[in-house]
């Protein structure tokens, strides 16, 4: 036991001496929370558009005024030629063009019918779709105003209630995702690399011939990262409560227990990667390609899983972070207890047991 403590102390020295790495490890969750919380959103505002107004009459002016007064659009200038329009799209200056044909008002008054064309830059299909929807809604509102606000009979009113997140903030979705990502990063990548580093430098040989039990060598390597991971969970939770105003609705104790479960999974994965490689570069690329990207993709916090092709949906089930993400969302935001998430917990625990068992079996006390 005394030996073990001495080894843990050695590992802590290693980790805490490397100030730059440590700064990055603690800086990462902070930066991610700030970026996701304040910089990244799919919200559309101040998008640059042009209006090609061939009509220049009262009606077209009303529509332009309405577009201008919305927060979504910023009207650039009034272009009049089609070639200019194409050039603007190619330069990437504008995302949407609205074409109002000549005699717009006259057609509207006499024929009761007039046309407007909306041209969207669909090289970004989602933005194009949203912008078109907003522009259509604004024009439709003008049409309604034109027809007078008469009371419509047979009116179905839809009452919509947003559960859990009435202001539609991004935070409830990404905070659990950032937690999963950061825990995976530290657990898998850092552990794998720090073990392989001893191999690469040749100091592993020395550790393995010492009278100390080889497995405890590895275990003592994992403990500093376990501690750093837990501190990071605390940092993320503090930031989300005090900076993003996202309260923890469920039990904090349960949340930490589940987090520790994921950290152990990540640590054993890191150990597994370290046993199958000899160079830090390979270990790093393996954990990045094999762990980081699947975590980013298959947890469902960036991209909805139900949109993926079926084979990918099946693959997503073997990613531990996906289950953790579901668990954290349930506890933190929905405020559910263990009775609602025992299934996910069991799956995660099962994965942990398998990974720990496999990595212990694969761990060799002789170097090739």
């Amino acid at each position, binding site marked *: 036991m005394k030996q073990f403590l001495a080894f843990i102390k050695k590992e802590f020295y290693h980790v805490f001496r490397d100030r730059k790495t440590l700064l990055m490890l603690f800086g990462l969750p902070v930066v991610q929370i700030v970026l996701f919380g304040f910089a990244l959103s799919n919200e559309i505002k101040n998008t640059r558009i042009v209006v090609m107004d061939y009509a220049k009459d009262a009606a077209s002016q009303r529509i332009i005024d309405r577009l201008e007064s919305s927060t979504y659009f910023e009207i650039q200038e009034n272009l009049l030629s089609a070639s200019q329009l194409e050039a603007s799209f190619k330069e990437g200056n504008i995302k949407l063009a609205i074409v109002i044909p000549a005699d717009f008002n006259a057609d509207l008054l006499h024929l009761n019918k007039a046309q407007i064309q909306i041209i969207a830059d*669909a090289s970004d299909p989602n933005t194009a779709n949203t912008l078109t929807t907003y522009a259509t809604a604004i024009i439709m509102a003008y049409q309604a105003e034109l027809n007078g606000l008469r009371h419509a009979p047979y009116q179905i009113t839809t009452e919509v209630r947003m559960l859990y997140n009435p202001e539609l903030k991004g935070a409830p979705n990404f905070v659990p995702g950032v937690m999963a990502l950061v825990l995976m990063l530290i657990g898998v990548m850092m552990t794998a690399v720090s073990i392989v580093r001893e191999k690469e430098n040749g100091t592993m040989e020395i550790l393995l011939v010492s009278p100390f039990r080889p497995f405890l060598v590895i275990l003592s390597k994992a403990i500093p990262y376990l501690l750093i991971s837990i501190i990071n969970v605390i940092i993320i939770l503090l930031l989300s409560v005090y900076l993003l105003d996202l309260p923890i609705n469920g039990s904090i104790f349960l949340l930490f227990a589940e987090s520790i479960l994921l950290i152990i999974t990540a640590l054993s994965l890191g150990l597994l990667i370290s046993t199958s*490689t000899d160079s830090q570069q390979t270990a790093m690329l393996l954990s990045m390609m094999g762990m980081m990207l699947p975590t980013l993709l298959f947890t469902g916090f960036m*991209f909805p899983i139900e949109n993926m092709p079926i084979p990918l949906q099946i693959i997503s089930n073997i990613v531990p972070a996906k289950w953790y993400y579901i668990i954290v969302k349930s506890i933190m935001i929905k405020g559910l207890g263990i009775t609602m998430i025992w299934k996910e917990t069991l799956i995660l625990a099962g994965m942990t047991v398998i990974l720990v068992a496999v990595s212990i079996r694969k761990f060799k006390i002789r170097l090739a």
Partner: protein
Amino acid sequence: MRTIKFLIQKEFLQIFRNKGLLPLLFVAPLIQLLVLPLAADYEVKNISISVVDHDHSAYSRSLISAISSSGYFKNAGYSSSFIESLAQIESDKADIILEVPVGFEKNLVRDGGEKLFVAINAINGVKAGLGGAYLTKIISQFNEEIRMKWISPSRFNSTAVIEIVTSTWFNPYMNYKYFMVPGILAVLVTLISSYVCALNIVKEKEIGTIEQINVTPIKKIHFILGKLIPFLIIGIVVFSIGLFAVGRLVYGISPIGSIALLYAFLFIYLIALLGFGLLISTYSDTQQQAMSIAFFFMMLFMLMSGLFTPIESMPQWARIIAQSNPVTYFIQVLRMIVLKGSNFNDIKIHFLVITIFAIGINGWAVVNYKKTT
């Protein structure tokens, strides 16, 4: 010149000897380019809707069938009470609850109005917002149909109708993959080249072989060029495989604009990025350190590049970060040339900025790299 040749030869020998690294360098990006665009789909569809139909009338049934046939929603089943549906939301089996009150049809026809109740799981705000908008749209269309049935059609002709015609340029079928593939390719090339370059030099530091190079008459600039050129070549090869093998054959994307222009930009961009890798390696002593610094910045670059979320919707301070991020320019140029066929005139500012980056970062790295430790 001869010195550089030998140094490059040495690097390639080391890269090709490392049997673990090589497949990761070439195969992993390809697999990712195959898988990522399939997975990275922001389109909101397949929203599960749970229906609580207290009315069981012809109207409620036709409304529900209108919702399920819209393509956005899939029916997660009927339940007899709101509480039961809420449990489905809690277990993530449903995203939206639609509750039709008792006497929906009767009240609508007799009293001229009725309420529907919708509850949406809004943890994912974007999905909830769009899902709600789609559902309201379907309901109001349904409403319009009912109105048409009860009001004589002649009265409708007297109102003005603005017909809106929408055209989608550059990607008429609104294929989301056209948007994602160039972006993901840009990120993969960035990751591979800067990471491997940063780690490679630190590795020489860590295992001590850099001492041996430092005591030879090899000049600073030779050493750096000898490190940069092999990774430049690898970056170009990975990019070409991604663009032609995966992009064209799998996703059917062929660049509309000039390929020469694309490669010219790639060349300068890679020099800038490799310089960044170099800079990281001059500041770190161990591979672990280089890796975590590189990871930190790559994460920042990736999130702030407009790959996933549009730069226009960022606040001012974040837009400044995005604009001082080389990856932003590469993704923009790639999308512009490949999808819109933009020419040199359209992207000359991008060229200028990336050239400044390349010169600035490499200059910094060369100054900071010391032959004596």
